């Protein structure tokens, strides 16, 4: 998760650098004496500058991907069991040409598997939001509740999500709800904590306004707390969905059924390593898309 964040930050700084690099050139061009200005053909036009900065922006990530493929190719030459990019690509084309077939409960297209996993994540995550966000508000708002919740959160949060699976199986007596339960319990903490932190950070000035205006608790929540906390909440939501997506693969490996995690396990049993590599990419790309979607959603909700 944080790795994604860091790499995105660095991409952003790279982008900014790329955007600022043309400026000195432009300044220099403008500052050059009349002699230089008389030969306008030498000066790059605005359009070509734009094009150049676009390529400068695009090249590093492309190089990154190419480097990854190169390393992968090298390793696959060394170890004969690991399929290389080419055979994986062929396998992927075949796989994605029919993503929604349905032969039997244990033999379904990759599309169904992805959707099944997304559904579990959506359910577990949605329940976690439904419980976690109001809980975060209560904990952030009332000192007593915060003190009360501190030991519970402190003890339960560091527990590995999969440690909750047996409890889920025991209580629900079925694999699917148990997997959703694991998602729920691992996705709830970032939402509780970020919401509570947001509430506790509401500036005293705003609370003084509320006091002077004698606002009702309902107005305080809707007009002051909620708008202020929204960006914090969205951070929690983003972290949560990241965790949920991380956990789902492992949970499904253990519970079975339809889902990308179980699919990986199944392909391992079939010794279809190409498919495992494809699954890794699919999981990564879906996770990235979720992250991007929520980031843009969060940006929309920020009042700044």
């Amino acid at each position, binding site marked *: 998760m944080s790795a994604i964040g860091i790499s995105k930050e660095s991409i952003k700084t790279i982008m900014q650098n790329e955007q600022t690099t043309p400026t000195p050139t432009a300044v220099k061009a403008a500052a050059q004496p009349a002699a230089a200005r008389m030969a306008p053909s030498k000066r790059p036009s605005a359009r070509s500058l734009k094009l150049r900065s676009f390529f400068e922006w695009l090249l590093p990530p492309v190089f990154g991907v190419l480097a990854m493929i190169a390393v992968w190719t090298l390793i696959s030459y060394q170890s004969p069991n690991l399929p290389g990019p080419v055979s994986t690509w062929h396998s992927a084309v075949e796989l994605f040409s029919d993503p929604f077939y349905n032969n039997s409960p244990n033999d379904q297209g990759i599309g169904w598997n992805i959707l099944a996993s997304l559904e579990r994540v959506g359910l577990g995550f949605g329940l976690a939001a439904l419980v976690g966000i109001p809980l975060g508000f209560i904990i952030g708002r009332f000192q007593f509740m915060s003190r009360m919740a501190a030991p519970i959160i402190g003890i339960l949060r560091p527990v590995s999500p999969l440690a909750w699976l047996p409890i889920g199986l025991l209580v629900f007596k079925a694999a699917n709800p148990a997997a959703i339960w694991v998602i729920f319990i691992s996705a709830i903490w970032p939402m509780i904590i970020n919401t509570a932190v947001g509430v506790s950070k509401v500036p005293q*000035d*705003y609370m*003084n*306004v509320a*006091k*002077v*205006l*004698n*606002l009702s608790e309902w*107005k305080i929540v809707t*007009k*002051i707390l909620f*708008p*202020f906390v929204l960006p914090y909440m969205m951070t929690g939501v983003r972290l949560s969905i990241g965790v949920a997506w991380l956990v789902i693969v492992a949970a499904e490996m253990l519970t079975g059924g339809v889902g990308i995690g179980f699919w990986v396990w199944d392909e391992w049993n079939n010794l279809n390593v190409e498919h495992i590599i494809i699954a890794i990419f699919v999981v990564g790309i879906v996770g990235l898309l979720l992250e991007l979607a929520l980031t843009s959603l969060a940006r929309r909700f920020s*009042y*700044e």
Partner: protein
Amino acid sequence: MEKIVQEKYVQLENVNMTFFTKKGTFEALKNVNFSIREGEFISIIGHSGCGKSTVLNLIAGLLQPTDGNLFCAGREIAGPGPERAVVFQNHSLLPWLTCSENVYLAVERVFGATETKVQLKKRTQAAIELVGLAHAADKRPNEISGGMKQRVGIARALAMEPKVLLLDEPFGALDALTRAHLQDELMAIMAKSGCTAVMVTHDVDEAVLLSDRIVMMTNGPAATIGDILDVELARPRKRLELAEDSHYNHLRSEVLKFLYERHAKKAA
């Protein structure tokens, strides 16, 4: 109908304020006594950190004194209330609401129970127009200048039709020109509304120009009232005429003497 002006409209009696912090106790105010006449404009002046805001927050009801009593209109001040509106130092507008929504929030709270939505909207608009911001009513606070924000803060306070208006360094963060402009406007508004006002300031000219009386505070800890200066200048006051006025300049130097001779603050 003749209205009887209450001599002791707001009253502070032997007010002590001690803060209990992690680092120990801090006695901010000791034995503060003064009263404010109805309709009077009072300034509280003193060096930074002496306890001006604390006095204002006590009157606002945002703080409770450790000792002593505060009254407003004959009743003990038990907590904050809309009859004592506050204009905060840093405007404290809610950034996610437009200017008029910020004002509406206050209007709704005070008059919502007795008036229709249309009337509430009218009040909001009137308050925004009063401070000359009709053109910016639908803008968010971060889209307008500091001076405009402070005006919205004043509009929000005035829209509540308070008995007492409390202002904490309302123009402290503004440039000199904007500040002068807003001071003139505030004077005009106060003349119209006739409500009682307490303003915290550290600007000597502002204090003399706006006030009927200036409450001068000694330095903390255990700050108290050093002196109270009557400002007997006829209203309406014009800043340009006053600049040449000998009485104005005398009052000004009285305050300066208090601040820089009798209670000079050691350089930090």
